[in-house]
């Protein structure tokens, strides 16, 4: 129980009750410091549940209130290292845009399972944004416990630039560390008014294509590579023709949002564009949220096998308990229940044993090329999306 004591005429402190000294004074533990003072009377120490800060701000005299507010802040922030030792284990999952709904549900599933195994519940925190931007934040010091990003290039960037993830991270978990996969499809307006059937239709005059910026969005890079894969197949491997096709495709893009969800909003809520290049899961989610009669999904002849990988950020682990929980958090993604949850959230997961018929039957057959056909993300990333890479060249030609 937290007690507030006064240690001098104007000094207040708060901390855990240790013992009563018998002369009306008590001893408290204020974040590692043992303090002795007289307990503040009932009138001042307002009921529980209110934070000391708010309590301070509602104090009867503003000067006292302001002082207490400052000391409350000092206590709050001074406490951090001490609190960390006793508090439940925390996991910060830094993820990309379209996984918000999935991880919200998975976090509940995981904690239910984890406590069932006899562990303390874990505090699970989420951060979502464009995949490349999220990787950048982790490199700049965002203390991710695990990263669950859109493509391996972003996790490799963290490994290269911060050294917090070992080089061989992708072999640590099954299926290239990708517990679920997806592909790139087209989302068109109801009835497909522009008659879009395959990649060649996207380069036609008068078709507006919505796709995010490949520099910041993982999904956008999959979009680009899917179009590129189709073009190479269509033009029998002729790169010049493929480039010309890509240039005319990107000429049809009116806005480049920073993340996949931004593009989905541009298309579905702001009503811009004729076709959205989207993660399949994102397209299904838009259908589910906006109504089946607003959009149609068109599956192209060729697309990518998108493998969004997950891994532990070893360099940010602070305790053995945290490591144990974080490893279990990632491994449990491969359990039948979690796989069923991924399928329910429109991801193509590996294990269908616990999923419903409806969730399995949803996905149409499509020829999905692996990024390995182009040499893997380690090669593709600099050649296509690095500074002055193929994307820059195509974009500058416009």
């Amino acid at each position: 129980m937290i007690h507030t004591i006064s240690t001098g005429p104007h000094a207040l402190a708060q901390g855990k009750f240790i013992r009563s000294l018998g002369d009306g004074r008590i001893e408290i533990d204020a974040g590692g410091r043992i303090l002795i003072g007289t307990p503040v009377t009932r009138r001042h120490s307002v009921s529980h549940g209110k934070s000391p800060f708010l309590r301070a701000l509602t104090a009867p005299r503003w000067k006292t209130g302001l002082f207490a507010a400052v000391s409350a802040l000092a206590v709050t922030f001074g406490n951090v290292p001490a609190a960390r030792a006793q508090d439940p284990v925390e996991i910060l999952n830094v993820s990309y845009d379209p996984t918000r709904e999935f991880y919200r549900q998975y976090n509940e599933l995981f904690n239910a399972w984890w406590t069932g195994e006899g562990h303390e519940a874990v505090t699970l925190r989420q951060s979502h944004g464009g995949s490349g931007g999220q990787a950048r934040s982790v490199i700049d010091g965002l203390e991710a416990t695990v990263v669950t990003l859109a493509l391996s290039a972003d996790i490799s960037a963290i490994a290269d630039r911060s050294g917090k993830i070992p080089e061989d991270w992708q072999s640590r978990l099954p299926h290239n560390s990708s517990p679920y996969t997806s592909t790139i499809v087209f989302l068109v307006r109801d009835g497909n008014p522009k008659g879009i059937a395959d990649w060649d239709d996207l380069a036609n005059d008068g078709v507006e294509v919505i796709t995010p910026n490949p520099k910041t969005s993982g999904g956008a890079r999959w979009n680009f590579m899917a179009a590129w894969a189709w073009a190479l197949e269509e033009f029998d491997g002729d790169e010049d023709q493929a480039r010309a096709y890509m240039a005319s495709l990107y000429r049809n893009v009116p806005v480049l949002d920073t993340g996949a969800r931004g593009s989905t909003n541009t298309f579905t809520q702001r009503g811009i564009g004729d076709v959205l290049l989207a993660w399949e899961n994102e397209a299904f989610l838009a259908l589910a949220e906006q109504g089946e009669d607003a959009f149609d999904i068109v599956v192209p002849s060729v697309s990518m096998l998108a493998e969004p990988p997950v891994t532990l950020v070893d360099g940010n682990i602070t305790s053995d308990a945290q490591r144990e929980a974080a490893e279990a958090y990632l491994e449990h993604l491969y359990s039948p229940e979690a796989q069923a949850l991924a399928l329910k959230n429109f991801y193509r997961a590996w294990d269908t044993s616990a999923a419903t018929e409806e969730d399995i039957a949803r996905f149409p057959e499509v020829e999905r090329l692996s990024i390995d056909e182009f040499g893997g993300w380690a090669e593709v990333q600099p050649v296509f999306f690095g500074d002055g890479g193929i994307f820059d060249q195509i974009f500058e030609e416009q």
Partner: protein
Amino acid sequence: MSDVAHSVHRATPVTTEPRLTRRILTGTVVALVAVLLFAPLIAVFAEALREGWAASLEGLSSPDAHAAIRLTLIVAAIAVPLNAVFGIAAAWAITKFDFRGKAFLITLIDLPFSVSPVVAGLALVLLFGANSWLGAWLIAHDLKIVFAFPGIILATMFVTFPFVARELIPVMMEQGRAEEEAALTLGASGWRTFFTVTLPNIRWALLYGVLLCNARAMGEFGAVAVISGKIRGETTTMPIMIEMLYNEYLSVAAFSLAAALALLALVTLFLKSLLEWRYADLLAATRRH
């Protein structure tokens, strides 16, 4: 401000314009205000209440929304007073003393107005992030700046830096040093002069500055978005939470929070109007200085 008051008196030609011209001008302004300011505000409230009060309140009652509201208020409660103190000090130094590089200092104070908030956020990440020596030192000593509460305070303070100083400098410049010098020759101490002479003279400008500063501090998105790390329930201020909720198709919750933010701003405006009305005569008196 007195410039405006004077020019209204002197600039008689405007009032002799034909009635039609006047009506067209007034009409244009009213129409623009209605379309650009009022309609979006109504739209926010309409969207928030689309599914009724209950749904709207439910959207506001999630722990994450509470955390966002709390964080925004705490950030404003810290950043605004600090910037008010800084603003007074800066305005005092600039208007009461002569020193080399004064013009440069004024330009520097204006810097946050001309720098994009995103750039400000990125600059802070560069300075305090894990890849700078300062950031590495801070991390080694377990002091979190970027992607944590202190970073959000810094970003907010950077963006709202000039508001108070910018309001005060013209007023104090116009008032000159005569009254303070008189107080000093009569034997008042420096602090006494400040509290009994300077502060009463500048209080309206100070109030405006603080209100503007507060509104911007609560509404800041760009700089904070870069430095917050977007950890739910922890480093998400109200504007960031609004964007997140909107992106998650939780339209009602997003607009309920947006309405709450707009209400906070409206309360600020209402307070300002109330004070103006209550002290109208006093206000007129100070403006004549």
